[in-house]
């Protein structure tokens, strides 16, 4: 279980040396252990996305979360499972279809943009080209994009992608968050106070105070 995410950025990598949330599983209650173990196990099969949609979604989520190497958190499998089971968030905008349909339409539109710009499907574009296509959507903000409001599509993608990614113990290791806390709880609360199982940040200086030259920029 000692896999680490291969984070590209020189500043973020290794901020919490040796921190391994999953190693604490013996201190978690049964119900919680079960839901977290599922994320560390084999990902569910793709049931909702078509093969083309799966390819586009993978390329998109790899970009959103900067996961360009294995091991990866299987974000698209987790999104697919939610959509297949209609585990939506309990609302959709009046001018957007339900989440599942909105995913399908927006992935198709993303592909269409790349074909127009680069004559290739999104997942066959190189990483720089993909970034350009995505940033153009972000830049539209409240403007329209293929009949939808761009920022609502952005919110849909990032909400699902981040929920999947930051529910994974590997992501917790990277940000210093210990995950489940029942029944053990915390005994040392307060600024700069640590539990014995927490690890201090090895690079505590604000990344924005480090010169841009020292850090990766997306």
């Amino acid at each position, binding site marked *: 279980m000692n896999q680490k995410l291969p984070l590209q950025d020189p500043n973020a990598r290794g901020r919490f040396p040796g921190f391994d949330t999953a190693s604490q599983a013996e201190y*978690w209650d049964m119900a919680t252990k079960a839901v977290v173990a599922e994320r560390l196990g084999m990902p569910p099969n793709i049931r909702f996305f078509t093969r083309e949609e799966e390819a586009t979604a993978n390329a998109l989520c790899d970009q959103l979360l900067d996961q360009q190497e294995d091991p990866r958190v299987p974000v698209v499998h987790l999104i697919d499972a939610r959509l297949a089971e209609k585990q939506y968030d309990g609302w959709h905008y009046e001018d957007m279809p339900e989440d599942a349909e909105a995913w399908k339409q927006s992935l198709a539109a993303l592909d269409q943009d790349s074909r127009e710009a680069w004559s290739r499907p999104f997942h066959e574009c190189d990483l720089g080209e993909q970034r350009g296509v995505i940033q153009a959507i972000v830049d539209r903000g409240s403007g329209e994009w293929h009949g939808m409001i761009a920022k609502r599509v952005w919110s849909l993608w990032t909400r699902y992608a981040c929920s999947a990614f930051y529910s994974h113990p590997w992501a917790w290791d990277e940000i210093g968050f210990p995950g489940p806390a029942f029944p053990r709880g915390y005994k040392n609360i307060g600024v700069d106070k*640590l539990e014995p199982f927490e690890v201090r940040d090895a690079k505590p200086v604000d990344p924005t105070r480090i010169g841009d030259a020292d850090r990766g920029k997306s």
Partner: protein
Amino acid sequence: MRLLPGSLDHVRERNESAWLMPPHPGTNHQLRHDMRRFEDDDEVDLVIVGCGAGGSTLMQRLARLGWRIVALDAGPFWEPERDWVSDEAGSHHLYWNDPRVIAGSDPVPLGSNNSGRGVGGSMVHYAGYTPRFHPSDFRTYSQDGVGADWPFAYEDLRPYYQDIEEELPVAGEDWPWGDPHSYPHSPHPVGGNGEIFLEGARKVGITAKVGPVAISNGRFGNRPHCIYRGFCLQGCKVDAKASPLITHIPDALAHGAEVRADSMVTRVGVDDRTGRATGVHYVRRGRERFQRARMVAVAGYSIETPRLLLNSATERWPNGLCNDHDLVGRYVMVQGAPQTAGRFDREIRMYKAPPPEVSSEQFYETDPKAPYQRGFSIQTVSPLPITWSEHVIAQGHWGASLREYMSDYVHWACFGALCEFLPRPENRVTLDEEKDRHGMPIAHFSYSQGENDQQLLQAAQQKMEEILHAAGADETMTIQRFAHLVGGARMAATEDKGVVSGDCQSFAIPNLYLTDGSVLPTQGSANPALTIMAIAARAASRLARGARGGPPR
């Protein structure tokens, strides 16, 4: 004077819930097993729709007086040790996730951000802040020329505030704002986020206080002490944080009430001839059923309560029950809830300790020097990683810069404001063309802000930034959010102004009551759950005293 923890034993005489809990985190299975069960054909004294903040309080109060009550809830009868997890993504099932459509110029996302589903209602996953409203909240129209006046005054609610504060129980410092008061439990120790709030506020001369939170500080009955694990918004597996599931339902069951979970009410039954409610139509295990009752109370939350009334239209009430004056579903309110975070080289680790720690109500009242009416409060909020990622995304980060910012999580402190948005008739719930799996039209919720609302947002953000910078933050980020939906079937002195009276009785149908957050005419900048419970407790006591004809038999 603050009482010492342990001296709340007198509460047991009026609400034994905390003593009916097992002496460890968990459920009293025997109590549920022995629960009384009524037949659909039994004409019970009262059927309640929704076992949340308002519904459960009403049930407990009247069950104690011998009323025969069935309370239906669309969601499950939670068993926290089995159903709840100490995990963010794994708690998705606590929310009302059935489809709803949102619209307007400032649409309000629902689901996890707003309402719950299951016995205990939204308080299962609420943060746990339980401030009182201020006396001025009850007369904003006559005092400030905005909003609406309530049909009763703060003083009428005060004894119910005191009772509920003991029953939850609430912990906090002596409270200097509104009607100054103290709390039954002493304030909790604070974590990093709370320390930053206190430090920054002191430096800029803003008064900040620890609390008020409905989290026991010390043992209360058989309920244990908080373990500062920070997962209050995921349901408290420890039973330290109050929700009706542990504060009112056990006592109601012990007094012969039935909680019928997994029962979605689709219509209130009304006899057009007599003009009285007859019971409720509901769906359980796929079967359509009808529970007869002498009196109906709807407490399904500010979206579901109007939806249910609108969907219960008859020939006599073609536009929905109680809707002759076109008021059902209108004046729904949310508080503007911008959250501003600050970055410190020190490690804050805001996920430790409950998110509700410290608050300030210094800017709650109308400031004659400000260009806007009414005000805002500021509180600690402590988003867990998935929610925190929304804050980072909102700044335009994605890809490598998102991951990098996220790896900085332990260095951030985060506050939230609650801005008193004003009630507007066009902010409303209507029925959509889309239907749910029961064939019931889903709710369509439209929301738009006014100018006063937007000014409050800016003022609140500025104050939060000031506090954070004073505490030493070198960078801040803000995300716009909404919190705490209330209104939609407001109370008023007369039927042309509101759907129910101050006693929560509908003007149109004498044996139909609404006892949840939908009756609030204004919202202040306080979190609403305590006030909702106090209003329901007051309605129960008025019913019991026979102010409206007394108990049905």
